[in-house]
């Protein structure tokens, strides 16, 4: 029941992040008290640079986001602060749903939060809350207006980080789509931020959410997301991994992601149409297809039509973004096609090859047949 006395399962150096007392020696201030001098993040809005997430926290957040389907879900994270890094050791769910339309989503969960945390203290988990996470199913990792407000409130209570997970893009792209953000204080203008802001980066934002994204993109910045794992985790993961290679070979990503890819393309089509402007496509039908006109409309940036009011520079940046987004979809589709082709070349024609007795198949089945008698 108790931990056997041994030092072979863990290493003080390699698993240091799992110890809590390591990070509160007398010369390091505990994160939630003290004056301004011991809280450098108060003075520098850009103080925190990285977030390190434990395997448990990551998996829990991804699973929670996925289980919510198309509803946004939300939860809290526990951990501590180490210089300019947030260390997230655990995450837990909150009983709220559909957080994007209500500011007070967290208010509902306050009681749950208080009870849960006091329970944790009793089982001697000393970590404090260091942030909150929520999901954006299908529309990327960035902070909406409501999220920005929520995070601003959170940051008043101490060093907090906001994490966003997109379960749909995670599954479609085969990579965890996750982002970590902190908001700037009011009246702080971050240096060197262009029209597109920092939130979306090279991730595409669907049409329906563009306005929300653009309006608040300059109010927060993104932190680097890293993961860490213990030596014991390494060993267990190796043991588990032996079971997974089958799925890699047998899976068909094109099929599983068909819906998502189609919705992406539809969305991009809408963006292009909007970019080109309403009037252009109809007018110029001389001598050729409407496609030509649309193309020219693209190049000329939509003339006097729906101007995005960000000027010509904004237009060409938008075009680039659209091009980049399509490029991303194309890459994923290509990878899916490659998977299907690999499957075909390995397993296709097996029947013929087996009949021809290639690879010593005949001798093998002969041996087995003999023994069967």
């Amino acid at each position, binding site marked *: 029941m108790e931990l056997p006395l041994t030092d072979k399962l863990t290493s003080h150096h390699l698993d240091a992040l799992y110890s809590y007392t390591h990070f509160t020696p007398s010369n390091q201030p505990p994160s939630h008290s003290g004056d301004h001098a011991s809280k450098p993040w108060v003075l520098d809005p850009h103080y925190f640079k990285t977030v390190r997430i434990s395997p448990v926290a990551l998996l829990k957040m991804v699973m929670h986001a996925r289980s919510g389907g198309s509803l946004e879900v939300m939860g809290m994270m526990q951990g501590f602060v180490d210089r300019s890094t947030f260390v997230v050791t655990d995450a837990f769910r909150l009983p709220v749903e559909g957080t994007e339309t209500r500011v007070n989503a967290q208010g509902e969960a306050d009681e749950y939060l208080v009870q849960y945390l006091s329970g944790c203290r009793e089982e001697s988990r000393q970590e404090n809350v260091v942030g909150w996470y929520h999901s954006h199913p299908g529309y990327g990792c960035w902070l909406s207006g409501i999220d920005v407000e929520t995070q601003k409130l959170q940051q008043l209570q101490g060093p907090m980080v906001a994490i966003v997970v997109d379960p749909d893009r995670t599954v479609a792209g085969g990579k965890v789509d996750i982002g970590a953000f902190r908001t700037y204080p009011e009246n702080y203008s971050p240096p060197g931020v262009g029209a597109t802001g920092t939130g979306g980066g090279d991730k595409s934002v669907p049409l329906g959410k563009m306005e929300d994204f653009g309006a608040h993109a300059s109010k927060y910045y993104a932190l680097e997301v890293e993961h860490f794992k213990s030596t014991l985790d390494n060993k267990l993961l190796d043991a588990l991994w032996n079971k997974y290679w089958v799925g890699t*070979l047998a899976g068909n990503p094109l099929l599983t992601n068909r819906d998502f890819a189609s919705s992406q393309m539809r969305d991009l089509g809408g963006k*292009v149409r909007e970019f080109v402007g309403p009037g252009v496509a109809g007018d110029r039908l001389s001598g050729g297809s409407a496609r030509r006109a649309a193309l020219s409309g693209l190049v000329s940036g939509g003339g006097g039509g729906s101007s995005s009011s960000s000027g010509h520079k904004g237009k060409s940046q938008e075009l680039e973004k659209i091009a*980049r987004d399509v490029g991303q979809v194309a890459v994923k589709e290509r990878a899916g096609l490659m998977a299907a082709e690999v499957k075909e070349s390995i397993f296709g024609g097996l029947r013929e090859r087996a009949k021809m007795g290639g690879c010593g198949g005949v001798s093998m089945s002969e041996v087995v047949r003999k023994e069967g008698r």
Partner: protein
Amino acid sequence: MHQEGANELLSAQKSSDSGLQIILHPLPILEISDFITRGYQRNFKGAVVGGLLGQQNGRDITIEHSFSVKSVKEEDDGGVYELDQEWFRQRLDQMKLVHKSPELDLVGWYALVPKSGPTVQHLPIHRQISAVNESAVLLGFHLENMLSPMPGDPLPITIYESNMEAEGEDKEMKDSENPTNMVLRFRKLPYATETGEAEMIGMQFIREGAANASADDAQAETKNIAEQFEQKIAVTDGKGKRRAVMTSGSVSKNPASPSKGKGKEKDEPSSSEPQAQAPNPDINLTRSDSEYMAALQSKFNAIKMLKSRISLITTYLQRLPPAFTEGKQTTQEASDAARASGGQYTIPSNNILRHIQSLVANIDLVTPAEQAALRKEMLQEANDVKLISLISDLLTSVSEVKEAGKKSSALESTKPGKGPSGGGGFGGQGGDNNVDYDFTGSFDTAQLRGGGLPEFEAVGSMQQEFSGPSEALFNFSD
């Protein structure tokens, strides 16, 4: 003493045939490991125990989630651990509240268990858990296996179910004066691991890179970031395009990153990286290329695994003792002889051979009967993919043309007097810097090749002939 106690608790019956199917997901495994590592690092003195949440549909039990629980040691009761009932009830309610879709319930508990099986120490808590769920299972984590791991070892986990069994060999019906003594017995349950898509992707994310949990000195930190880039894990820095440089160990974003000057520059001097090596040939990969390569890499690993498994089977068959393969010996004799031969021959086993035969027979099933339909579908898929690639290339070209137009207009505007009279009809060159060229006129007059995809032709020829900015834009037809 203790060992005998442990064996006593294991059922005398053979492996479970109660029909319970257990499906284990990866999260509980990692949660237990997290508990253990944390325990060691913080000198935890209590018991490593927790609850298991999952779904129970008749005979199928899934174990999807776990949570650590508070246990207290009853000093007066001989030092056994028990759950804090109040705490447990509250925590279980909280868990059920947030795990509504799918709805999870308590299906068992976990604890550190010696290889020989559960001991009397596990009984009190097991009884407490069974009070909540009659068919609660015990997930035993065998820490000793991890101390001396063998390669190819399965997970150090055994799942036990408990039954009340009649004590003793005597199974005859006793009358009411001597009631049968029922005791708790544990039985091993076979289990399978299953991983959902999202779990798989999360696990891959965690597994990649050698990022360990060492506390930061700046070196360790940058090393982790380097590994991250090396393994091309998705990292948002939200600052436009950047190129991930694949160097093994040394960290540098390609300083010429095309992010219009907004890119995060993380130029760690290579001297601080003890493992900095010669420049990597992959230095100019764009992000999409690296993603594609990562997909190829994982496919390659999977294929390698498949190959090694197949060669394992073929080696086994090839090294069966020849007397056996010729049918001159029975299996029993052959296996004795093989064992005696000290590793020269593999030990034949009817079971394994039957498996292999069914494998060979099943090869037939891999190729589907409807070849034509399959081929058609594959073609359709391939067409879709290629179409998307084409669209993507088209859009890139369009944006490049726009750039070219901008640059040329900038040039034109510095040469006074050129005006709009140049061939090709550049419109709207006023005093203001109207950088949006109206190419529509030129498109109409240009001799676009008929048929096919005129847009592509035009764009293609424009790109080819991009010698000097002004000239190129005058030549739309080749």
